[in-house]
C-alpha cells in the first residue's frame, strides 16, 4: 500500500491544471491532498466546473464562477452524505445541526465521489482520534473505484469502455471477410480483365469493315470475301470468348460473394451470442433480425452483382478511353467530355441518397419490430381485442416507410433520366464533331462508326454505373449496421488473461456490490458470503433487487461497484464460459428450444449419453410425464414448449440444470408460476437438485424456502436482514412482516401472482 504522503503528491499532480495552483497554495505545512472530486454541476444543476478536495485536515471546495474558496476543517459531528437520483449525484456536508454545503455532479463522476466519501470518513476518524489512517488492504482502480485483484494492473471495468465510433469507411472493412478468398478473387479479376478486353474487339473491327470493305464497295470496288469472313470470324470469336470468360468469372465471383455474405452473417450472429444481456435489453428483436437477415443478404447481392458489374464497367471505360485516344485524340476528348459532368452529378446525389437509404433501413427495422412485438404477444392482443390497434401501428410504420422511400425515389427518379439525357447529348456532340472531322478528311467514316459503337456501349453502361451509387450506399449502410453489432464490445468481456478455474468449491463472496441500470441504482452496498453447499433464500418485495443480484452472480451483467468472487477469484477475471459452466439456472419462465425433449435436457451438455439424460429426468421428476408423450424423449417441443404445461416445462429445465452438475445453483422463482400440486412435484425435483450445491433461491412463497440455511431479506437494493426463518421471525423485522402478510393472506407489496397457490397451500395445512 502506498503511504499517505506519497499518495498526496500523486493526487496533487493528477489534479487538473485549472485547480492545482489554487489548491497547492492553500495547503499547510504537513497537509497533503488525499482525494478530490471534480464536480460538473452547480447547486442549481447547471453545467459548471467545481472541485471538492479532501486533505488530511479539512475539506476544500472551489467553484469555477466563484473566486472564493470554501473550506471546512475537520471537527466532530461533521459528516458527508452521498446519494444519487436520475443521473445526478449529490454530496452533502453536514454538522449536527444543519446542512453546510451540497455539491452536485453527473453520474459519471460517481466513483470519484464514492472514493471521496470513503476517504473522508477515514481521514476524519484519523484526525480526530490521532490514529493513523486505516485503509482496507485492497487496491482499487483510480478511475472507477473498482476492486482490483492482487497484481492486476489493468482495471477490468475501464478497459472495456470504448466510446470511439466505428469508422465510417465501413465497406472497406469487409476486406477482413474477403481475405480468405483472395485467390479466387484474384483469378476472378484476371478473367474480368480478359473478358472485358475481348468485348472491346467487336467495335474495333467495325473500322476495317467500314473503311476496307463497305466504303471501297460504294466507290466501285468489289467486296473482298476473304477479308469479310476474317473480320466476321473475329467478331464471332471475340463474342464467344467474352461469353465464356464472363460466365466463369461471374460464377467464381458470385461464389466468393456468397461465401463472404455467409461468413459475415455467421460472424455477426456469433458475436451477438457473446454480447451481454445488457445489449439485448436495449435492442429490439425485430431490428436485430432485420440486420442479420436482410443486411447481410444485401451486402452479398452488392458484392456478387453490383461490384462485379461496376468493375467490368470501369475496366471498359478505361480500355475504351485508351483505344479511342490511340485512334484519334481529338474525337476521343470530345467523346469523353460528358464524363466529368456525370461524375459530378453522381457525387451530388450520393450524399442525399445515403441519408435516405439509412432512414429507409431504420424504418424497415421498425416494421419488423412491430411484427416481433405482436406475434409473440398475440394472445394478449386477442384477449384485449386490440387487433385493429396493432394493425394501425403496423400501418403507421409502413406509412413512414412509404414517405421515406418516396423522398429517396424523388431524387432517384430524376437521376436516371438525367444520365440518359446526358448520354443522348453526348452522342449528338460526337456525331457533330465527327461529321465535321470527316468533312475535313481528318478521320475516316470507319473511325467515326467505331467511335459511335464504342460510346453507345459505354454511355449505356454509364446509366447502370450510376446505379452503383445507390447500391453502394445501401450496402454501406447495411455494412454499417452489421458492424454496429460486430463493433459492440461485450459489457461482460472475457478478460485478456483469464484466471484458470481449478476445482470449484462454490464459495461466493459478494463484496460491497452496487449496480446501476441506466441511471437507476438497483443495488447498493450488498455484502454477502455464501459458503460451499449452503442454500440461501433471497426474499423481498418485487423490485427489491433479488433478480438483479442473481443476474450479477451469473455475470449476465457486471457490477457497477464492488466485486463478486468465486472461491476468492473475481468473476470478471474468469473466462465467461468457464464460469457459467459451473452455474445451473432454473428460471420462472423456462425456455425450451425447438427440438426434442432429449435435446432440451442435454442443452448444456450436448454430448450427454441417453442414460445421463434419463437419470437427470428421473431426478427432476420428469421421466414419467416424458414417457407419456407420444414419442417419449424424442417428442418435439415447440417454440416456447407449446404442448407442455408450465410444470412440465419447469421440470425439463430442472433436468437441464441437473445434467450439467453445476457447483452453483440459481433458482429464480422456479415454482411461482405453477399450481400447488405441481409445485410439490417440482419441489421434490428441486430437493434433488439442491443437494450438495451452493444454492441461491428466489421465491415469493416464503414456504418454499424452508430448506434454506439462511434467508437474506432485500429491500430497495440493500440487505436488511440475514438469518434463518426462526431468527428472523424472532426479530420481528422486515421478514416477519412479509411472512405475516402472507400468512394473513394480505398482499402488502408482493406480486399477486404468487398469491393463489400460496393460499391453497395454507388452507391445506389448516385442514
Amino acid at each position, binding site marked *: 500500500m502506498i503511504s499517505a504522503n506519497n499518495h498526496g503528491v500523486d493526487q496533487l499532480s493528477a489534479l487538473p491544471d485549472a485547480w492545482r495552483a489554487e489548491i497547492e497554495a492553500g495547503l499547510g505545512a504537513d497537509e497533503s491532498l488525499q482525494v478530490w472530486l471534480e464536480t460538473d454541476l452547480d447547486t442549481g444543476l447547471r453545467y459548471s466546473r467545481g472541485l471538492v478536495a479532501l486533505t488530511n485536515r479539512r475539506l476544500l471546495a472551489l467553484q469555477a464562477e466563484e473566486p472564493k474558496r470554501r473550506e471546512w476543517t475537520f471537527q466532530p459531528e461533521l459528516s458527508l452524505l452521498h446519494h444519487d437520483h*436520475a443521473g*445526478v449525484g449529490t454530496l452533502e456536508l453536514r454538522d449536527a445541526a444543519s*446542512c453546510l454545503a451540497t455539491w452536485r455532479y453527473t453520474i459519471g463522476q460517481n466513483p470519484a465521489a464514492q472514493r471521496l466519501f470513503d476517504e473522508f470518513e477515514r481521514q476524519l476518524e484519523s484526525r480526530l482520534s490521532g490514529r493513523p489512517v486505516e485503509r482496507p488492504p485492497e487496491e482499487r482502480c483510480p478511475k472507477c473505484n473498482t476492486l482490483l485483484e492482487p497484481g492486476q494492473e489493468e482495471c477490468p471495468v475501464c478497459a472495456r469502455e470504448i466510446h470511439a465510433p466505428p469508422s465510417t469507411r465501413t465497406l472497406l472493412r469487409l476486406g477482413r471477410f474477403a481475405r480468405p478468398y483472395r485467390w479466387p478473387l484474384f483469378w476472378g479479376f484476371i478473367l474480368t480483365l480478359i473478358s472485358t478486353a475481348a468485348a472491346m474487339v467487336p467495335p474495333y473491327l467495325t473500322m476495317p469493315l467500314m473503311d476496307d470493305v463497305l466504303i471501297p464497295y460504294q466507290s466501285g470496288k468489289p467486296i473482298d470475301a476473304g477479308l469479310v469472313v476474317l473480320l466476321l470470324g473475329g467478331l464471332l470469336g471475340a463474342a464467344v470468348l467474352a461469353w465464356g470468360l464472363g460466365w466463369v468469372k461471374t460464377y467464381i465471383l458470385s461464389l466468393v460473394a456468397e461465401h463472404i455474405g455467409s461468413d459475415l452473417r455467421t460472424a455477426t450472429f456469433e458475436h451477438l451470442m457473446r454480447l451481454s444481456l445488457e445489449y439485448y435489453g436495449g435492442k429490439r428483436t425485430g431490428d436485430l433480425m432485420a440486420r442479420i437477415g436482410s443486411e447481410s443478404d444485401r451486402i452479398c447481392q452488392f458484392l456478387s452483382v453490383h461490384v462485379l458489374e461496376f468493375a467490368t464497367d470501369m475496366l471498359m471505360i478505361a480500355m475504351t478511353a485508351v483505344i479511342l485516344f490511340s485512334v484519334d485524340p481529338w474525337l476521343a476528348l470530345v467523346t469523353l467530355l460528358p464524363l466529368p459532368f456525370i461524375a459530378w452529378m453522381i457525387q451530388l446525389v450520393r450524399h442525399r441518397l445515403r441519408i435516405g437509404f439509412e432512414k429507409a433501413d431504420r424504418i424497415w427495422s421498425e416494421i419488423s419490430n412491430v411484427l416481433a412485438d405482436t406475434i409473440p404477444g398475440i394472445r394478449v392482443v386477442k384477449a384485449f381485442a386490440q387487433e385493429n390497434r396493432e394493425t394501425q401501428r403496423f400501418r403507421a410504420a409502413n406509412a413512414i416507410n412509404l414517405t421515406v422511400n418516396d423522398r429517396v425515389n424523388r431524387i432517384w427518379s430524376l437521376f436516371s433520366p438525367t444520365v440518359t439525357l446526358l448520354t443522348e447529348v453526348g452522342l449528338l456532340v460526337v456525331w457533330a464533331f465527327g461529321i465535321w472531322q470527316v468533312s475535313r478528311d481528318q478521320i475516316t467514316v470507319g473511325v467515326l462508326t467505331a467511335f459511335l459503337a464504342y460510346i453507345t456501349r459505354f454511355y449505356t453502361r454509364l446509366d447502370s454505373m450510376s446505379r452503383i451509387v445507390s447500391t453502394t450506399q445501401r450496402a454501406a449502410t447495411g455494412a454499417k449496421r452489421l458492424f454496429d453489432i460486430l463493433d459492440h464490445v461485450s459489457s461482460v468481456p472475457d478478460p485478456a488473461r483469464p484466471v484458470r478455474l481449478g476445482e470449484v468449491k462454490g464459495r461466493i463472496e459478494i463484496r460491497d456490490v452496487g449496480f446501476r441500470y441506466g441511471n437507476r441504482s438497483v443495488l447498493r452496498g450488498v455484502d454477502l458470503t455464501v459458503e460451499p453447499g449452503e442454500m440461501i433464500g433471497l426474499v423481498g418485495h418485487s423490485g427489491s433487487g433479488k433478480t438483479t443480484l442473481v443476474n450479477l452472480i451469473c455475470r449476465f451483467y457486471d457490477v457497477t461497484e464492488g466485486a463478486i468472487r468465486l472461491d476468492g477469484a473475481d468473476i470478471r477475471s474468469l473466462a465467461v464460459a468457464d464460469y457459467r459452466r459451473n452455474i445451473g439456472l432454473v428460471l420462472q419462465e423456462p425456455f425450451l428450444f425447438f427440438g426434442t425433449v432429449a435435446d432440451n435436457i442435454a442443452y448444456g451438455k450436448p454430448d450427454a449419453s441417453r442414460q445421463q439424460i434419463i437419470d437427470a429426468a428421473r431426478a427432476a421428476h420428469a421421466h414419467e410425464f416424458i414417457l407419456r408423450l407420444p414419442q417419449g424423449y424424442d417428442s418435439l417441443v415447440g417454440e416456447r414448449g407449446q404442448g407442455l404445461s408450465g410444470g412440465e416445462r419447469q421440470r425439463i429445465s430442472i433436468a437441464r440444470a441437473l445434467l450439467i452438475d453445476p457447483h452453483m445453483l440459481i433458482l429464480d422463482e422456479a415454482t411461482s408460476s405453477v399450481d400447488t400440486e405441481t409445485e410439490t412435484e417440482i419441489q421434490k425435483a428441486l430437493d434433488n437438485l439442491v443437494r450438495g450445491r451452493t444454492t441461491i433461491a428466489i421465491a415469493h412463497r416464503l414456504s418454499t424456502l424452508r430448506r434454506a440455511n439462511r434467508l437474506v431479506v432485500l429491500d430497495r437494493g440493500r440487505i436488511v436482514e440475514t438469518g434463518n426463518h426462526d431468527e428472523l421471525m424472532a426479530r420481528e423485522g422486515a421478514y416477519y412482516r412479509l411472512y405475516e402478510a402472507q400468512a394473513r393472506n394480505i398482499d402488502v407489496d408482493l406480486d399477486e401472482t404468487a398469491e393463489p397457490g400460496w393460499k391453497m397451500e395454507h388452507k391445506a395445512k389448516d385442514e
Partner: protein
Amino acid sequence: MQAPDFQLKRDAFGRLVLTAADGSVCEGVVPVRAFPISAPGEGIALVGPDGHEAAWIERLDQLPQALRQLVEEELARREFVPEIRRIHEVSSFATPSTWKIDTDRGETTLILWGEEDIRRLGKSGLLIEDSNGIHFLVRDINRLDRASRRLLDRFL
C-alpha cells in the same frame, strides 16, 4: 383552490418535513411526478424515505403559494433533464457518437450509445438517453436551428 390536508416545511438539513392531517410527521419526503413528460403539473406524490407515498397532490397549480414553492424548489433540486438547444457537433453518424451540445443548463457533451436510445415524444419531441443514463430533452425538433436539425435527423 382547496387547502391540502397536510403541511410541509423545510428543516435545517434542507429536507422537506411533512405533517399529515392526523399529526404524523414524515421527514425527508421527496416530490415525484407521476407523468414527468406527458403531464408534469398533475399528479405529484410526496414519497417518504421508506418509499411509501405520504401525500398526493392532484395539481401543482392548485396548491397554496408557499407550499407550491416548496414543492417546486424541491423538484428543481431533483430533476435533471437538460433541454437541448443546439447541437454543435457530432463525432460520427455511427454510434457510439459523442455530441457537443448546448442545453438550457449550459454546454456539455453526451455520448449516445445507439439510435434506440432516442425516444420519440409525441410528434416532434425527443428524449435522448446518454451513456450515463442522463436524459436530454428536445422539446420540439422544428424549433432547433437548421444545422442542429440536420445533424439530429441523421439519427432518426
